[in-house]
């Protein structure tokens, strides 16, 4: 039998191989500061915030409006209009800012709606169980089985004929995306909720007389919060991409600028064939950046919420490796001494 040198153990405790994510209690740090905001999150947040600022504040200071005809069909970029004009003779930068704003709003609306539906169905199915679970998950599986894009296209075409104001605008498109994008969230939340439902604190809540809605909100949902936040970020990204797909197919709302509509008109008016890169490249890049940054944010949030995925800085990892090597050497020396003594 051998023992590990106390010094080595002390070092391990003081300087763990992987930086601690949870500070010792009583250090008076705000809870959010205990999260590991790594470079991934900083980069993704920086991109998202920059794009959002340009989309929401840019139009307030930019001198041209998106519906203002300032030139002709695909005028080339100039010092005055840095990205030239689109097929309607509108300033591309101005249209791009409004398009981005509308796409972000659409993503927020659709993503939130999808999340609400998915979480509601998932948490009910997972917690209540029984025939409720069977029914809700059966319905979810049916929706999953139908190709999403087909439902999106059909409902979008139907809504184009409506006279209800809400459905003719970007809200209508967000609604369509929202009501078709929830199934996978529901399935995942249901699995998590099923697990939480078997824990002791739920029994205590029941014994204390709490009603089901209260238990779901106060005792189940908090345990799913990290997952819900990540799902919401993914829903945002997929909603923005779905909007672009529909708009590019010409199924976007009438008279509304969006990144997909910009690409739709660019394709229709042969921007690629005529070399008018300024008409199709900027919306493509913005779309890519939004999707990339949201997916990157989701990945970094995953690291924050899931300690097993955390990655330290290289220098910390090197230090930890050195400590482990030192501890191993000390252990080996100790073993040698014990053998000699025995």
């Amino acid at each position, binding site marked *: 039998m051998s023992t590990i040198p106390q010094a080595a153990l002390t070092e391990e405790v003081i300087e763990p191989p992987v930086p601690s994510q949870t500070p010792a209690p009583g250090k008076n740090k705000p809870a959010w500061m205990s999260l590991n905001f790594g470079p991934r999150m900083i980069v993704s947040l920086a991109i998202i915030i920059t794009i959002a600022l340009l989309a929401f504040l840019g139009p307030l200071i930019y001198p041209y409006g998106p519906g203002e005809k300032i030139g002709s069909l695909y005028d080339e970029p100039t010092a005055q209009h840095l990205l030239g004009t689109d097929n309607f003779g509108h300033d591309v930068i101005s249209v791009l800012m409004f398009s981005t704003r509308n796409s972000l709003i659409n993503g927020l609306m659709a993503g939130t709606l999808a999340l609400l539906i998915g979480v509601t169905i998932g948490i009910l199915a997972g917690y209540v169980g029984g025939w409720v679970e069977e029914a809700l998950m059966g319905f979810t599986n049916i929706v999953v089985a139908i190709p999403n894009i087909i439902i999106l296209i059909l409902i979008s075409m139907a809504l184009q004929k409506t006279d209800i104001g809400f459905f003719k605008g970007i809200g209508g498109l967000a609604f369509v995306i929202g009501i078709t994008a929830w199934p996978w969230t529901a399935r995942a939340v249901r699995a998590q909720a099923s697990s939480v439902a078997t824990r002791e604190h739920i029994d205590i809540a029941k014994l204390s007389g709490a009603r089901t809605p209260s238990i779901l909100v106060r005792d189940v949902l908090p345990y799913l919060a990290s997952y819900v936040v990540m799902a919401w970020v993914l829903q945002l990204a997929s909603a923005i991409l779905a909007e672009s797909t529909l708009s590019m197919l010409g199924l976007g709302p009438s008279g509304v600028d969006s990144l997909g509509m910009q690409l739709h008109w660019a394709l*229709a008016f*042969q921007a690629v064939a005529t070399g008018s890169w300024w008409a199709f490249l900027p919306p493509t890049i913005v779309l890519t950046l939004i999707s990339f940054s949201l997916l990157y944010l989701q990945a970094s949030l995953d690291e924050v919420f899931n300690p097993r995925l955390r990655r330290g800085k290289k220098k910390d990892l090197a230090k930890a490796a050195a400590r482990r090597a030192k501890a191993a050497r000390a252990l080996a020396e100790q073993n040698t001494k014990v053998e000699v003594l025995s």
Partner: protein
Amino acid sequence: MSDSVFFNPSRRSLFKVAGVVAGGAALAACSSSKGASGNGSGDTGEAKKGVGNNGQVGKGRTGTAADTLFIAGFQWGNPTTFNVMSPTAAWPASSNVLQAIFETPLRWNILTGEIMPGLAKSYKVDGLTITLTMQDNITFSDGTPCTAKDFAYTYNTGKANPGLAIAAFFNAAESIEATDDKTVVIKVDSTSKNVGQVLRLLTENYVQSQAILSKIATDKLATEIISAPVGTGPFTLGTADQTQVVLKRNDKYWGKDFYGGLPVMSQIIHPIFKGNEDANLKFANGELDICQTFQSQIWKTWEGGKPTGTYLKDKPYYIPGGMPMLVFNCTKPGLDNPIVRKAIASCIDYGAISETAMSGYSATVQPSLILPTGAESKFFNQADATANGWKFDAKAAEKMLTDAGATKGSDGIYTLNGTRLGPWKLITPTGWTDWNASCDIIAKSCKAIGIDVATNFPQQAECTQAIQGGTFDLGHWYVSGVNPSSPWARFDDVLSQDKMKPIGTPGFANYGRWKNSEVTALLTAAAQATDDASKKSAYDKLDALYRKEIPMCPTMYRPDEFYEYAAVNFYNFPDANNTYAPPMFRGAGNTWMYKLKKIAG
């Protein structure tokens, strides 16, 4: 504009096309160490005509491809039948597209307004009688003779089956009969007395074989599947599948003396594309010789060094021939008010439509149903159009509404006489690129002055049904273009009371169901006018009434056909400097098939 049709081409046929094109291109590239195009002067220094707008010509193809003309812009889906009578007939059996397999008795020239000989070598109008004399020795491609009896029989199928498109002939004519093998006599309808309309239909409807037609039951004439069409034209159908339609030259063509020889190309291939974008890409790459598609900024192709050309060398590049309309449904509350219609007509930025949606291919439109250029210009009354018409003036448009007592709501939309001006949907088929963009501009123009209009682009069939059935609010649609009976035909399309149908019943004129008691007499007077002075007088009255009521308003002048060519294998295409033929595919446009010259000799 195009119908997007998705199809599954067979790999074998695709390889064939690709092989021919690639092989031809490779051989052409190998045959010379020079660049891909020259400057339009041959080795002899002789200046070539009908070359690219930049003066360039290609090097020409070699092998089989050198004798092949590649054409596009007419067939977008799987060719199912070559039955001329079928509404879904494939190119070139579909009515009035190209006189390749079938031919018409007369041919129309869009440039001169002239009615030219076709299968009939002459026609004579004597009051309400039109007598046509057939050309000599006309034969069908199966070798049987084509006589006046075939001509009369074909047209008379419209009397036997009113569901056929050719039945429209008997709206203008009372009878047609062959008095001998070479003479056809037509009696013009004694009520409408519209000789021009009869002549127009003689330039648009093909003559077919009585022997073949008579074997088909009358009620099956439109639905019979015909895969081996027999016509009098210089080509016969070679093959047709999901990827292409191939025509082979008929070396026994009856008209080689009349046209001065056989067509230059031994075969014509029409590749079938999904939509304009694919066709335009092939055109720009020199893989098509001639094309009929809307191409945004076509000048960039020749500015980029391609030997492409259009009839006109400067904007608008194409000959105006059509007048797409914003159609108001005059049965809808709000739109039944001519003040509202005039306000909408006045708020539209026509310049923006012309410059951007139409790529500069249209002059700004005038408030008239008469084209101010070409054959119709002699009837156009500029003074009255200026005095009593409209033009883009958003402030004036809004003032019209406020002067009429309209008040603006908190949502920025006006209400007039208790009727909110909108929401109205403006429809046109999806994929009709220039029209979709025009509608976008119109909707934004309306919203800017407080009229709630939104665009909606359904599939073509659905849109056609809505327009013809009158179940729309606003539509962007077409009416009669330039033809032998225009502008009368256009006035009739827009204003006709006789052809107006109840809501829900398909109608082919006056789609907006505009009602008026005086227009029928004016239309009749215009149809019966025999000389230009009396015609102009009648058209002045019709146009004045139109400007007062505005049941539709023109949004752009569109080419009757988008005629664009690439001098990659042939040159001597008709253009403004080489005027032997009009820039057409239909009618007299067939002349270029006989006059093109091969670049590679």
